Each structure stands twice: as C-alpha cells, then as structure tokens.
C-alpha cells in the first residue's frame, strides 16, 4: 500500500502561496522545451487550454479526443457562464470573496490554497478569452456585462447568451488549431485512451484505440495530462454528453492514481424530466429560471387535475414554505432534494409523476409575456422543442438530474496525481469544488488549470526530473497493449443475451436510487451488492456486436460501461464510509431536526482518496486532512 503523497501546498500566507510557488519552481529553458513531448488527453476547456498554452511555450504536444474534432468536447454544452473576481459592477467583489464563496459553497471540503489560487487566476481567464475573440455579452456602452448566479451576492458571472461553454471552447479550440497548423500540436481525433503506461514508476505513455480502424496505438512522452472530464454518466441518464466517461481516469486509477471523493456528485434541480424508457440523456434548463419561476406541486398526492385547474390553496409552493428567505433560489442540492421528497410522497406531476411544476404565470402577470420572452426566450423554445408544450401557457415540468462530479483523481497543489508525471486537469480531478460546486465555476477551473496552472507546474516537473530515454518497445507498452487487446477480445467473445445499453441503464437505476440525492446506510449496502452482481453478469452475458476492426460505437461503450461498473461500487463505498452530510452528499442518518444536512467536521474534514488494490471491491482508503487556517467553518442556512 502506497501512502498518499504530500499535497505540496506552499508555506506562507494564503494570498502569497501561488506567487511564492512560482518564484521557487525550476524553469525549462526555451530551447529545451522542444525536446519534450507532452501527451494531453482531452480537448475540453482544460485540455484545449493546456495543449494550446504548452505548444505556445515550445513543448511538442500530442492531443487526443474521442470526437471527430477537438471542438466537440462536452464543455461545448455549458450554458450559464463563467465566474471571475473582476468587480466590474463595483458591487464589492474581491478575490477573497470569490475564494470564500467557493469554499463555503463546497461545504468546506476543499483545499484552501487551491481555491484561493483559482480565484486569483480568474481575472486573467476573462482577459485571455476576450483577446481570443470570445463574444461575451456587453452593455450598450461596450463594456462587459455580468449576471448573478446561485451562492453569491455579487454579479461576477460573464456569459455569452446561453452558450458560454461553446464560445469559450471555440476560443481554446482556435488557439489549438493555430498550434496544430504550426506543427506544434499533433492532433489525434477519434481516439480513445485505453491505458496508461508507467515506466520506472513514472507516467510515460498511453495506449489508444483508433476509433475508425480499431488499431491499438502506442504513444510515448515525458508527461501525461489527463483532461478527460467527469463521470456523471455512471448514472446512465445525466446532462453529460453521451461520450463522457470515466475510462481514462479509471485506467489511471488502476495504474496507481488515487481516486478522491468519488461520492460527491452534483444533481441539478432544473432539468427536463424523463419521458420514457428509451430516454438517452437529459437536458438542463438554466437555473436562472428560478429567478422568476415558482416551484410547486399539488397538496393532494396523485392529483390528476391539469395544473391550471388546481386552485391556489390546493398548491404547495414547498420551497417558499420551507425556506422563506431564499425561497425558490435555494442552492442546487437543497432544491433537488426537496423535489425528490415531494415526489416520494406521491405528489409528483406529469405522466411519470417524477416532476414538479416551475410556473411562470405570476411572473407573466407581473412583467408581461414580452419581458419573460426577453429573459428566457431561448430556454422556453428549447423546452417546447423537447416536450411539445408551450411554457407561456402551461407550467414547465422539471426534475433533478445528475450534472457534474466534484470527485475525481486526487492531485497535489501542482495538479500531479499519485503517479509521478501524470497530471489531471478540469472536471477529471477532485481539486477545487469540495462537496458541491457553485454555478459558473467549472468553466473557470478548467481554464485556470489549462491556461495558467499547468504551464508552471509541468515545467517544474520536467526541469526537476531526470527522465531516462525510453521507447514504445519497452515491456510496459507490450503489457499495456496486450491487456487492452485481451479485454476487447473478451468483450466481443461473450455474445450474451443483453445489450451494453441494458446493462448501463440497470447500473444507472441502482446508482440513482441508492447513490443519488439522498443516501442511507442500508441503501448503499444494497447498492454495493447489486453493482458487483451486475458486474459479474456483464462479463458473462453482455452482447457486443460487430468486431474490433471497424467504427463500433457499441464496443466503445462496452469498455466504458465495464469501468462504470467498477467505479459505481467505489462511489457507494465512499458514500457509505462518509458518515456525514456535506454538499451533494446527503446521508439521511445525518440531518438536523429541520431536515438539513449535518456535517461532521471533527471526523470528516478530509479528502477520501481511494487506492486501487487489485480487487475493484476492496480499494484502500487514504485521508488527506483539510486545514482551514483562513476561513471559519459554519453551517449553511437558507431558511
């Protein structure tokens, strides 16, 4: 059992840590950078920003993504915005406040030093993106506009209509494209990383599958950057893109990278509800809708009446009732959990009874339909396109959905995992959001990691490590490639009675029921048993069509579902072990008399980092204690 490496947080005052880190690191001289190959897996905000920045510095970069173009990474779908402490509105924002809101929003389960660095860097991100030509929203005077988002009392969110992620990603993609054309980045699209290759205890390469031809390929480098996004698709249904997966991270986990806080998942309260068994993914509706929409369900369970015929006094505006001061604007986890409770009581609405109303009638009366159209027109249109209902006339039906995963591979202050030479950026790492992420902070973190953190921390690693010359003929490459090939052959040879999708959906049901919005000891124990049984069944009874030497989506998905079936169990185990409620992790046994989350700072103010032991059911737990020297731990209250 390997101990958890040091978090390498620099000494000194919080405000000075990042500068003193930068002052003390070793630099790689410009001529030498050209001698170093760097592998960047993933081209989302984190990977795109990292690849472009490192190539600009002179490193030789190899980039990989699953989609046919780096521009299509899941980051493209982010809607709402990106935070920064610019304080352009002069409403009192500071780096400290952004730091504080993020630490508090994360329910005090993240590292102070990382979060403070994130807040410090936030302003440079906006500068960089504007210079790239990102068309952020502006006021009539030509200056940048800001909006407010959950968990903050200042307006610090920059946005580009409802397509902020798209515009930021295209900025990073364009910067990458410039480097690809200049020959500084070699781009490998339609590739899936299937394994990590370690030589002499350091990450030195990866095995990829060419998704068009099925060929297994070997790539060698001096460091590997994993920027492969989150694992929300373990729930089958989520707002993540269909190709989002845990495979790259999980394969690294099996090669020695510890997985931190896997149970921290974010469930977003305002998504379009599931309409049937065929449903393949869920669509988010921006939470800005809760500014004007009122959430309610009928008081009577199973009420069959149409919403407009239910009189006012037979409706329960349950958020306004339970949280008079925040009302419909309580944080994501609180809103989600309460929707689940009313549906569990049988008061859900719509065909499936798994939805609540988000009603704009009062806002339309107050402000007029035109004003509502101006604010939310594109969202209303999207809702109507998907559901076929007109939300100006009928209340929207919404339900929570899995949206983001705060957990991920453990990294130190320099974003290095427990495998030397393997760095993890963006949603794939666990670093900055603790037990709950605030809106508009994931885009900020991905870009901070890629544009402004990794260029320093990677340089320090390269300059201070003596890397032996190695080649793709090394035994470690043989072993990893053979393992990947054997696994593919095994998946194709089973030819059982159930499709990959059926297994994935079943896993999703277990995860949603027992490792979802509200968790219990009993439910988690049940989940652990069920997942391991399902995993055994998968390896006996899955049916994967076609063969390896072709474009074969089902084969790709089979490998990913196999990894989700291991991750799911560790998530349940992590949730079971964390005997407290914190942020997105709510344990029914640990709540206050009023039903609010109860943290246990004395025993659980730590990061839980799981080490792979060779048996997916028996990982080894390491703890990184979290020291709070600058903020006082308080209980969140939204009453």
């Amino acid at each position, binding site marked *: 059992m390997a101990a958890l490496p040091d978090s390498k947080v620099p000494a000194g005052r919080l405000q000075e840590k990042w500068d003193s880190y930068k002052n003390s690191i070793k630099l790689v001289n410009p001529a030498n950078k050209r001698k170093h190959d760097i592998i960047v897996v993933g081209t989302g905000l984190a990977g795109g920003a990292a690849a472009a920045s490192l190539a600009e510095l002179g490193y030789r970069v190899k980039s990989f993504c699953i989609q046919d173009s780096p521009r299509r990474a899941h980051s493209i779908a982010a809607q709402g915005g990106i935070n920064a402490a610019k304080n352009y509105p002069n409403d009192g924002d500071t780096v400290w406040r952004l730091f504080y809101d993020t630490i508090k929003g994360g329910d005090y389960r993240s590292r102070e030093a990382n979060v403070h660095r994130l807040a410090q860097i936030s302003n440079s991100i906006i*500068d960089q993106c504007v210079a790239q030509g990102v068309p952020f929203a502006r006021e009539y*005077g030509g*200056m940048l506009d800001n909006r407010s988002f959950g968990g903050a009392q200042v307006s610090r969110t920059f946005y580009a209509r409802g397509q902020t992620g798209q515009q930021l990603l295209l900025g990073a993609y364009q910067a990458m494209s*410039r480097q690809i054309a200049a020959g500084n980045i070699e781009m490998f699209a339609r590739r899936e990383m299937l394994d990590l290759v370690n030589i002499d205890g350091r990450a030195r390469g990866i095995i990829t599958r060419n998704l068009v031809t099925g060929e297994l390929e070997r790539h060698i480098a001096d460091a590997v950057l994993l920027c492969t996004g989150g694992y929300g698709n373990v729930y089958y249904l989520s707002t993540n893109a269909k190709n989002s997966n845990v495979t790259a991270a999980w394969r690294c986990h099996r090669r020695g990278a510890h997985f931190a806080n896997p149970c921290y998942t974010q469930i977003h309260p305002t998504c379009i509800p599931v309409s049937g068994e065929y449903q*393949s993914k869920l669509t988010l509706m921006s939470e800005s809708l809760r500014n004007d929409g009122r959430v309610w369900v009928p008081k009577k369970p199973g009420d069959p009446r149409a919403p407009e015929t239910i009189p006012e006094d037979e409706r329960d505006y349950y958020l306004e009732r339970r949280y008079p001061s925040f009302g419909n604007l309580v944080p994501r986890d609180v809103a989600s959990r309460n929707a689940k409770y009313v549906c569990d009581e049988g008061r859900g609405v719509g065909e499936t009874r798994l939805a609540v109303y988000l009603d704009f009638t009062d806002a339309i009366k107050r402000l007029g339909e035109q004003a509502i159209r101006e604010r939310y027109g594109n969202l209303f249109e999207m809702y109507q396109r998907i559901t076929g209902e007109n939300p100006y006339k009928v209340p929207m039906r919404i339900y929570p959905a899995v949206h983001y995963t705060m957990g991920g591979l453990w990294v130190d202050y320099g974003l290095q995992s427990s495998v030397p030479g393997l760095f993890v950026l963006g949603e794939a790492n666990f670093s900055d959001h603790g037990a709950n992420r605030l809106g508009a902070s994931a885009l900020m973190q991905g870009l901070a990691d890629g544009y402004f953190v990794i260029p320093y921390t990677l340089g320090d690693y390269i300059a201070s490590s003596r890397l032996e010359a190695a080649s793709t003929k090394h035994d470690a490459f043989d072993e990893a490639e053979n393992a990947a090939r054997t696994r593919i052959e095994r998946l194709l040879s089973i030819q059982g009675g159930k*499709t990959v999708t*059926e297994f994935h959906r079943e896993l999703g049901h277990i995860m949603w029921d027992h490792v979802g919005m509200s968790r219990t000891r009993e439910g988690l124990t049940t989940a652990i048993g069920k997942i391991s049984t399902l995993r055994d069944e998968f390896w006996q009874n899955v049916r994967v069509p076609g063969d390896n030497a072709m474009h074969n989506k089902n084969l790709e998905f089979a490998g990913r579902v196999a990894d989700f079936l291991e991750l799911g169990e560790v998530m349940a185990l992590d949730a079971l072990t964390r005997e407290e409620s914190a942020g997105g992790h709510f344990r029914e046994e640990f709540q206050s008399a009023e039903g609010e989350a109860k943290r246990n700072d004395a025993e659980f103010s730590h990061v839980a980092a799981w080490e792979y032991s060779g048996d997916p059911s028996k990982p080894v737990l390491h703890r990184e204690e979290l020291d709070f020297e600058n903020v006082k731990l308080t209980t969140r209250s939204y009453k």
Partner: protein
Amino acid sequence: MQIKLKVWRQKGPRDTGRFEEYVVPDANPHMSFLELLDVLNEQLIMEGKDPVEFDHDCREGICGSCGVVVDGVAHGPQQRTACCQLHMRHYKDGDSIVVEPWRASAFPIIRDLVVDRSAFDRIIGAGGYVSVSTGAAPDANAIPIPKVVVDEAFDYAACIGCGACVAACPNASASLFTAAKISHLALLPQGQAERAQRVVNMVDQMEAEGFGDCSNHAECEAVCPKGISIKGIATMRREYIKATLSQ
C-alpha cells in the same frame, strides 16, 4: 407508433453502399430522432446484425456531432433544429423515413452515417483564430465593443460546425461555415490585425479541400441549425477582394 426506416449502410469509404429497410414497431412520439435510431440499433443487435453507426454526443444541438440527411433534408424537416433535437411527434404512425449520410467528396464516408469532417478543422487552422498566446492579453474591458457589434459577431460565432451547409449545397460548398468564422472575427477589434491574411488563407484552404463554389442557392442557410445568415458569405467575398487588392 410504427415507423419504417430506409437507412444507408456502407462498410467503409471504398464500399459501394446500399439502402436497407427496417421497421421500428413501437416508436414513441416523445423520443428524439436519434433515440429512434438507438431503439433500432438495440433491435438489430439482438437479431445478430450490425447496428447503424452514427455520430452523436451532446444530443442538445450544440456540439455539431450529429448530422444525417432525413428525407432529403439535412437534419430533417424542423427548421433550426439539429437532428438530435428532432422529435418523433412530428411524424405519425406508419410513416417511412429515408436516412442518409452527408454526401460531399470533401466528407468521405467512414461507415454508415459517419463521415470525415476533418477538412473543417483544417480550414480553421488556416486562419480562424486570433494569434494571442496565453498571458499576452490586455484587460478584458480595455477595448469597448458596441453591443450591436458583439451581438452580430455572436450570431456568426454560434456555428456548430456540423456540416449541414455542405450537405445541403448542390455544389457541396463550405462557404457558410468558412464565412461564419471570417465574419465573426472581422467584426471584432481583436480580429483586425490578421483580418486580410485570415480571409485569404481560409478561402484558399476551403478550395484546397475540394469543396465547391457558392452559387447563391441559399440551401445552407435554410438547413443551418443555428440560423447562420448567408449575409456572411457576402462579407467573406468582400473581405477577400479587399485583401487581395491590397496585397
């Protein structure tokens, strides 16, 4: 409801390809068009046949991965809607639907409905960016940009790079795609320094990739899921002439 599908099947770029007919007996009006293909594929797998390969990812009309020709129209009958957002409620029991890949010589077929659109990446690589390395940017509010200007730039920047414009064009031209990026950056102060070089390089690359010329059919605008205006193509032409005259 029952839906009959006639789907283009092709094993690889050199295979000749052919249509195959299938029936999905229990399609649901709420499902999306791609979910209909999912259901068909589950059926095919259990029958021991190869499922239909198609590209998809976000399924919310923003990543640009999906794209098939539905009954002769790129992305199908709904305006401003990528086929992942097309819902079956627009069809009725017993309908037949013909599904084909994007067809253009610059987009070789990989398998079934999956095509190679990497030419688009090379067009962007030829100049669809602002050369500003990380760290070199001035304060974000240093250069004010009028709201109307940035809004118009956004309208062009909204392109998702799906390739429907090429598929719909009788000449298989990539003009709308290329023009969208040129117009986006030409409108913004940040794009000025490289403005002339950009349009020349991108247009040359578009031609080198084997896309056809634009002869003003406007089919591209009609099928664009983001409603990108063909006014951009006029801008591109103007920019090109200005740039080449001043060279």
